[in-house]
């Protein structure tokens, strides 16, 4: 029992340390950049005395260490400061933009997993066959074509040429702001409100960016699954399982796949984290108002509070999903319990 508490304490300590490191690095990178945050706020024609007064008001005249201490102090109170661009609290901005990214990333990872894992297993079981080669080509394309190109091609084909999908953005102008925000996920909020036209519109808008991200992630997931499965299928215990007279399905799924599930969960968790951190390029191409776009625009405008806040959220997600993968490891693999 004691060892367990000790381990928990150790995990918590290392998490806190990681988080502190993250704040530290992002903060100082933000501050040593040769950008004067005042220009972003006041413009470059502001008089000297206004500049000086604002500098003092924002505490920017203080030594960096003091500024950092102040930032951490506010952070501990849930205050990420104010965004210069939107003049909202950064926490409000994130609460507004993040659901769009979660929605996009979640749909993408679900589709990618449901397609990628079976494809990977199939490729491994039929190693060297035509199916394996076809899957390899499909995955190689998803993996090696730059995602901005995929996104543009998708727009060109499904929007501009075939006109199957609506254009960019999250919803048609006609539906924007029509339904109350409950969860921030349009696909849920519209259904909640019973506005089925808007519901359909939300899914239609989601389909393209989610499809592009899903294809990209699916390619990676399938390749990893294939590699893991080949490794597992070469195990002696597979021969044992077959010698027991088990069906091929049971050998593949219970014995081989059972042994790779843990490693696969780690891959899926990190892929999901990657998507959540804001698929910056995809969100930009599809004008998807998510965290990635927020981060990009903030960075281009030297809106350092916004950048810092968004980066922290991304870091937290990574850490949380890592923690989840670790927990899954302990749950599914008796050897590390």
């Amino acid at each position, binding site marked *: 029992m004691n060892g367990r508490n000790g381990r928990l304490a150790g995990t918590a300590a290392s998490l806190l340390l990681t988080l502190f490191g993250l704040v530290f690095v992002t903060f100082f990178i933000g501050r040593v950049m040769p950008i004067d945050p005042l220009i972003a706020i006041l413009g470059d024609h502001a008089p000297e005395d206004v500049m000086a007064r604002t500098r003092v008001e924002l505490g920017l005249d203080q030594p960096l260490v003091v500024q950092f201490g102040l930032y951490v102090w506010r952070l501990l109170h849930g205050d990420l400061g104010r965004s210069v661009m939107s003049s909202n609290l950064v926490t409000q901005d994130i609460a507004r933009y993040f659901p769009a990214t979660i929605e996009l990333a979640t749909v993408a990872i679900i589709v990618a997993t449901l397609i990628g894992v079976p494809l990977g297993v199939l490729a491994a079981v039929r190693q060297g066959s035509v199916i394996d080669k076809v899957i390899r080509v499909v995955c190689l394309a998803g993996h090696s074509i730059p995602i901005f190109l995929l996104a543009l091609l998708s727009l060109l084909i499904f929007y501009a040429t075939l006109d199957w999908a609506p254009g960019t953005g999250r919803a048609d102008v006609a539906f924007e702001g029509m339904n109350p925000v409950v969860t921030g996920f349009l696909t849920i909020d519209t259904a909640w409100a019973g506005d089925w036209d808007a519901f359909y519109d939300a899914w239609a808008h989601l389909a393209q960016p989610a499809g592009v991200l899903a294809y990209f992630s699916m390619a990676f997931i399938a390749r990893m699954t294939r590699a893991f499965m080949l490794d597992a299928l070469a*195990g*002696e*215990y597979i*021969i*044992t*399982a*077959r*010698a*027991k*007279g*088990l*069906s*091929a399905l049971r050998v593949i799924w219970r*014995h081989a796949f*059972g*042994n790779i599930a843990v490693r696969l969960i780690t891959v899926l968790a990190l892929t999901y984290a990657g998507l959540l951190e804001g698929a910056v390029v995809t969100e930009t191409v599809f004008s998807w108002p998510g965290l990635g776009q927020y981060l990009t625009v903030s960075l281009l405008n030297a809106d350092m509070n916004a950048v810092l806040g968004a980066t922290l959220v991304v870091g937290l997600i990574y850490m949380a999903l890592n923690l989840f993968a670790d927990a899954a490891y302990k749950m*599914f*693999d*008796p*050897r590390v319990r």
Partner: protein
Amino acid sequence: MKVEIANLTISFPSPQGMSQAVRGVSMTLGAEKLGIVGESGSGKSLTARALLRLLPPAAVVTADRLQFDGIDILKASERDMRAIRGKRAGLILQDPKYALNPIMTAGAQIAEAWRNQKKGSAKEAMQAAIDLLAQVQIRDPKRVAAAYPHELSGGMGQRVMIAMMLAPDPELLIADEPTSALDASVQAEILRLMEDLVSRRGMGLILISHDLPLVSHFCDRVAVMYAGRVVEELAAGELVRAQHAYTRGLLDCLPTLSHPKGRLAVMSRDPAWLA
């Protein structure tokens, strides 16, 4: 139960063309204990695995006859093979550390083998698994049934393997170097256990090993393999009358306690043996 092998060849594609690993092996086996002895690469494991059709996918198998109790293994469907594997013939591999599924408890793995042939509920299967563990002389079968392979010693793991393969009451047991990964003190125990169970159930046994004296001690007949061929086959008691130079050479290389030698003989291989 009768196993008949006539002129079995197993080859693998290689950059230099097909390379033959087993080159015309013939043997028959009833409810008896046959030992197959040979060095690494002599084809003894492949020969045994061909019987269950558990060879690597790249293997190309030909034979005038390869039959298990009248079933033509070369032509049998995968479904027919599954009726042989486990149910009628079990296979014990060398190292339980790798041959047992690391994420399933010992009990679950035995129960799975039992249930696969005998059907029945999960509860019955687990009870059967515990009974089987007791049969392989594990003192605390309940605890071992709940243990994962990494929590078991090598000897225990091999007992679990034996219990698992005996679960469906097969007629033939193929043991592929079942004791090579074990401590010397445990080796004899495991072999004795296996011999005892096989004799009591009237099963056939194929014991593959590179340990000639050990095999001759536990088996009725011994087949000596070299470079993909059976070079000699004789009753275990007649080992001293072995004719083939390879067998003689193997015997000469053995140190004994009763007749100490100053310097052990080294095998000198005659290229003619390969022909």
